[in-house]
């Protein structure tokens, strides 16, 4: 692979993302691209490792949510510059997730955290918000060709809507093409199993890790690769030498 020598110090991109400094992250990315840096190199060697570090700091309770989200914002700022170049090269996001709080439930902070962690992990996230009817989930899964649909519920009386939504996905013939993740204060692994969902996590960072595992296990990257396409999941996995 041809190595491009840059004047721009790309360690600053890593640092800016870890420190949640969106302005610097954007400036460094802009300068690097102007010098001919390869978008994949920026993502693989600087942006994803930076967000991995942020995720670790959050997991170890060294970071609070604001630091996590500011890092995510810095990552997105840099990625927005790269996205058009990636699309031109046919690179796909890690995966596509549709997320929302189920019908009748207005609690959305936990769901927002999961959405932020998924975005940080390179997923294209469609956030439907709170109080989402089953048919809205179905429409969005169809429209976005989602790999994963994630439901959140905070109330015991809205938990049954998770099952109703799974039934709606089945009725629409979508259940086999999308994995269902569930979470929220009253939800448990047992409940996940009981309603026929595919995965459960009790933390936001855990949800992102599970989502990554799902897309890798789905062999989505392999499927895309067969078609001559690349994915961020594949790149991330290859870069880390895992799975």
């Amino acid at each position, binding site marked *: 692979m041809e190595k491009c020598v840059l004047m721009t110090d790309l360690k600053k991109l890593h640092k800016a993302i870890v420190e949640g400094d969106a302005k610097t992250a954007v400036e460094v990315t802009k300068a690097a691209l102007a010098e001919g840096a390869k978008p994949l190199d920026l993502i693989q060697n600087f942006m994803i490792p930076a967000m991995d570090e942020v995720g670790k700091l959050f997991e170890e*309770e*060294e970071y*609070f*949510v*604001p*630091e996590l*989200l*500011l890092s995510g*914002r810095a990552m997105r700022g840099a990625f927005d510059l790269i996205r058009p170049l990636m699309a031109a090269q046919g690179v796909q996001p890690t995966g596509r997730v549709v997320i929302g*709080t189920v019908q*009748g*439930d*207005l*609690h*959305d*902070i936990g769901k*927002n*955290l999961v959405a932020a962690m998924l975005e940080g992990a390179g997923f294209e996230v469609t*956030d*439907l*918000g*709170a*109080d989402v009817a089953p048919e809205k989930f179905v429409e969005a899964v169809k429209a976005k060709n989602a790999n994963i649909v994630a439901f959140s519920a905070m*109330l*015991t*009386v809205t*938990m*049954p*809507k998770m099952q*109703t939504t799974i039934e709606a996905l089945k009725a629409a013939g979508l259940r086999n093409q999308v994995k269902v993740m569930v979470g929220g204060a*009253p939800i448990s692994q047992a409940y996940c199993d009981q309603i026929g969902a595919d995965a459960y996590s009790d933390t936001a960072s855990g949800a992102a890790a599970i989502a990554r595992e799902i897309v890798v296990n789905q062999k989505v990257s392999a499927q895309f690769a067969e078609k001559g396409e690349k994915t961020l999941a594949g790149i991330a996995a290859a870069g880390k030498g895992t799975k």
Partner: protein
Amino acid sequence: MSKEKIFRNLAVSGPQDLIFGFAPKPVKCGFDLTIGAGTVFPEVNFTLPVMDVSTKTWPEVIAHYEEMATNILKRAVAMKVPGIVLEFEQLPQMTETPEWGAEITALLERHLKQNYEKYGLRGAARITPADIRGPAGVKGVKPVMRHGELWEKLNRSFDLCIAAGGDLISIESIGAKEVHDEGLMFGDVRAIVFALGVLACRDMTWLWSQIVDKCEKSGHSVPAGDTACGFANTSMVLAYQKLLPDVVAAVDRAMAGVRTLKAVECGAKGPSKDCGYENPIVKAISGIPISQEGKSATCAHFSHVGNMSSTMCDLWSNESVQNIRLLSGNAPEAYTELLAYDVRLMNIANEKKQGKIFQSWMIESDQNVSAIGTILAPESVYTIAKAIVAEETDYLRTVAAGKAALDIIQKSVDKKNLNLGKKELQWLERLHKEFANLPKDENVLAEEIFGTMGHLFDPECYGLKVAAAAAK
């Protein structure tokens, strides 16, 4: 029309006047119940087990409420409680179909009446419609607060529940939550202050003026109060999960006091609602009785202030528990017993003139465990309340409450009473700087926040004129 009465002085002469069971302005309600006149009563809150709420399941829902009301009051009589409040916190579906909420209100009133007539059990029902306005949390949709189908349903829910005999009328209103949530998530102090001190206070004034009017016209319902559940409880719960700094949650709690006070300035009489941990500030300023939750609400909330929160309460609540089977009976009746023991201790302490001693143990138990505990001790509450009434506008009062809380936390850290970790101390320092840089003029902040978060809220829904919005 707003009949706002702005408090310029405190209702108590010092922290020594803040004690459980006694409020400067007791409230009479329901079936011969007087709250805040020297006795603490249990307030039992209960909800459905895992089930769908729909037309199809409605008979089952009613059966649950019949069972819960019967068993709670039976246990209350057995425990010889001096009186009781039942709280019916409506699920969104019960406010969206106002007749449903009213049906359960009438059911609870019937049970309270029967127990009063048969056993002399004094009691009242607190009815809390769900604030379904907005809708909140829908991506890309700015909440609509003052008109539309959702507001009409909420408005009708108040009317029907009052007509059904509701004794105490409350709500956990959510005006400005869309900005406050974003502020919390990004640790953006300016957004948090703007949400609480400008938008939320405006919404409270608009909403509570109407609730008070409705209650006054009814002749029997008491406009009880609101809570910053969607605000400071969100930050508190996130802080306990180590997702937000404890110092942010503590400052947020102090500032929420100004917002919750607005209901009283519009005519609410108390008791303010249980999950408003900021209520002691409201009590110190206005003198109304308050409900609180803590160590006996672990079924619903985790907190570090389970003893502290009881130190100034007039009603003592379990927050919420599902109607599920336990060995001693169903959970709501089991929690009734738990609350009965708690209030019995508090009342005996007061009867023996040893309430302050008992209170001091509960303060000491929690004061230095967390920053929230530090700012909720009676002396801190008194200091924050004084800082609030010294300022003129809601915005300046909110800033003053935040600064007072910061000073209290800093002093406690400096004296090595409160032990905060490195990250918390960094945030404490950051908060000092952020508060020092807040503009004096709320309009300056309004323009700024509209510039950064204008996609989240509609200023007109808060009766707010923003030049940048008008220019669009």
